[in-house]
C-alpha cells in the first residue's frame, strides 16, 4: 500500500473526531477526542513511508472500532447524564 496523502490523513483525523462526538458517555467521548489529537501529534514527524503507512492503517482500524462502539454505547446509554455534563 502506498503511503497516504495529506488529504487522506486529515480526513481520517476528522472522521475520528466526528465519531468521538457520537459517544454518549462523557469519559469515553473525551478520551477518544484526546487520544486522537495526541496520537496524530505524536506521529506528525513520521517520515519513514512504511511507518507512516502502518500508523495510517492502525488509525483506520481504530476508526472502525470507534464507529461500532459508538453505536453500542448509544444503544445502552443511561437516561441520566454525568454530573460533568450538567450545569454546576
Amino acid at each position: 500500500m502506498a503511503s497516504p496523502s495529506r488529504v487522506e490523513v486529515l480526513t481520517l483525523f476528522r472522521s475520528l473526531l466526528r465519531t468521538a462526538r457520537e459517544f454518549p458517555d462523557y469519559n469515553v467521548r473525551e478520551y477518544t477526542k484526546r487520544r486522537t489529537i495526541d496520537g496524530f501529534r505524536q506521529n506528525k514527524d513520521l517520515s519513514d513511508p512504511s511507518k507512516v503507512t502502518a500508523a495510517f492503517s492502525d488509525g483506520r482500524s481504530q476508526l472502525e472500532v470507534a464507529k461500532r462502539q459508538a453505536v453500542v454505547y448509544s444503544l445502552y446509554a443511561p437516561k441520566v447524564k454525568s454530573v460533568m455534563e450538567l450545569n454546576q
Partner: protein
Amino acid sequence: MFSKFLTTALRRTVPKPCHGTRRLRLFSTAAAAVGEPYEEDTTGITMKGVKISGRPLYLDMQATSPMDPRVLDAMLPYHISRYGNPHSRTHYYGWESDQAVEAARAQVATLVKASPKEIIFTSGATESNNISVKGVLHFYKDKKRHVITTQTEHKCVLDSCRHLQQEGFDVTYLPVESDGLVDLEKLRAAIRPDTGLVSVMMVNNEIGVIQPMEEIGKICKEFNVPFHTDAAQALGKVPIDVEKMNISLMSLSGHKIYGPKGVGALYMRRRPRIRVEPQMNGGGQERGIRSGTVPTPLVVGFGAACELAMKEMEYDEQRIKALQERLLNGIRSKIDGVVINGSVERRYAGNLNLSFAYVEGESLLMGLKEVAVSSGSACTSASLEPSYVLRALGVEEDMAHTSIRYGIGRFSTEQEIDRAVDLTVKQVEKLREMSPLYEMVKEGIDIKSIQWAQH
C-alpha cells in the same frame, strides 16, 4: 467555646437514631422490590435516600475500572456468533475459540514477560491468590510449614493464610514501615528452613505503594523460597518482568486494567517448576490447575486489555501523573492538614490516599455524593472500622478514619479532577466550620492533651 462544643455534640447525637431507622426502612423496601432498586428519571437519580442530579464522576479505579471500548469490541464476537467451547476438539466452533484463548494467553504473557505456557486463566486475582497461597503449601506440606506475608496484603491473601493457620501451618505477618514498605532485613530474618512461600503484593490496593519487588525476589532466590505476588493493581501500570523480579507465582486481574470482570490469571513459573494443589477439580482444563470451561469472551477481553495496556502504558502514566499532581496541588493549596498515606516517592500515581485532619470520614464521604470515591478497599468500606492497612502503617485512629482514596485512570479528565478538588475543599471546609475540634486547634489547644472521659 465549650458551650458551643456541647450543643454541637448534642445536635450531632440526637438526630442519629432517626437517621438510622430511616435508612433501615429504606433498605428493606429496596430489598422487597427486586428489579426496581432505585429511581432514575431525566432529572436525576434517587438511591438509598440520596438524590444526585447526574451520574457521579468516577474516581475509584482501584475498586474497578470501566471497560475500554476497544476491549468490548474484541469481546463482542465471542458473545455473539463465536460461542464454541474452547475445549471442544471435534469441530470448528471449538477450534476458533481455542485459537482466541491461546492468542489471549500470549497477550497476557507478553505484558509480564513470561511464556504463554506459564499463564493459567482463573476467575480473578482472588482465586489466583487462593490457589497460590493454599495450593503451594498443601502441595509441599510434608516439608514446608511456614508462610511469610505482610500486614498490608489484600484480604484474600490474609484470609487464605488464616485458613492455613487453622490447619496447623505457621504464618508470619511482617509489619511495614510508616511509608507502607516492607523492611527487607525483617523479611530476611523471618525466613526459616521450612518456609514454603513469601507473598508480598506489588502495588497496594489502598495506598498504592510499590514494594521493592526485585530486592524481595533476590532474597527469595538466595534462600530458594518461592515468591508469590498479588499484581492485580500493578498489571499494566508498572512494568512487570517475572525474570528480573524472580517471581514464582503471580496473581492478575482483568477488571483493574479496563478489561472485563470475572476473569484473571495466575502466572506459574516453569523453570524451576513450582507446583500447586488445585482448588477446583474436574475436566482438567488449564493443565489441571483450574478445571472448568475457560470463558472465551472474558479471556479474549482480558488479552485485549493487556495488549492495550502495553501500548498505552507510557501515555497513560504521563497523563495520570499530571492529573495526580493537579489533584494534590489543588487540594493542598486550599486546605491545610492534608496528609498523604503511604510513601510519596514509591507509589503508583493513579492512587492518591489522603487523610483530612479534624473532619469525620463518614460525613466527608456522604457529602461527596457527586464524586465516586471510597475510604479504602471496597471490601472493607462497608464497615465503620478504620482500614487495617492504614493501622499497619501506624496512622493514628482519627486520621485513619478520614482517609479518602482517589483513583485516577485512563478515562479521567482534568475537569473531573478540578470538580473533585472543588467539592472536596467545600465539604472539608464545611465540616471544619462545624467542628469544635478544629476551632480548638486553631486556638492553639493540643487535642491530644484533652481528657475526653468525664468520670
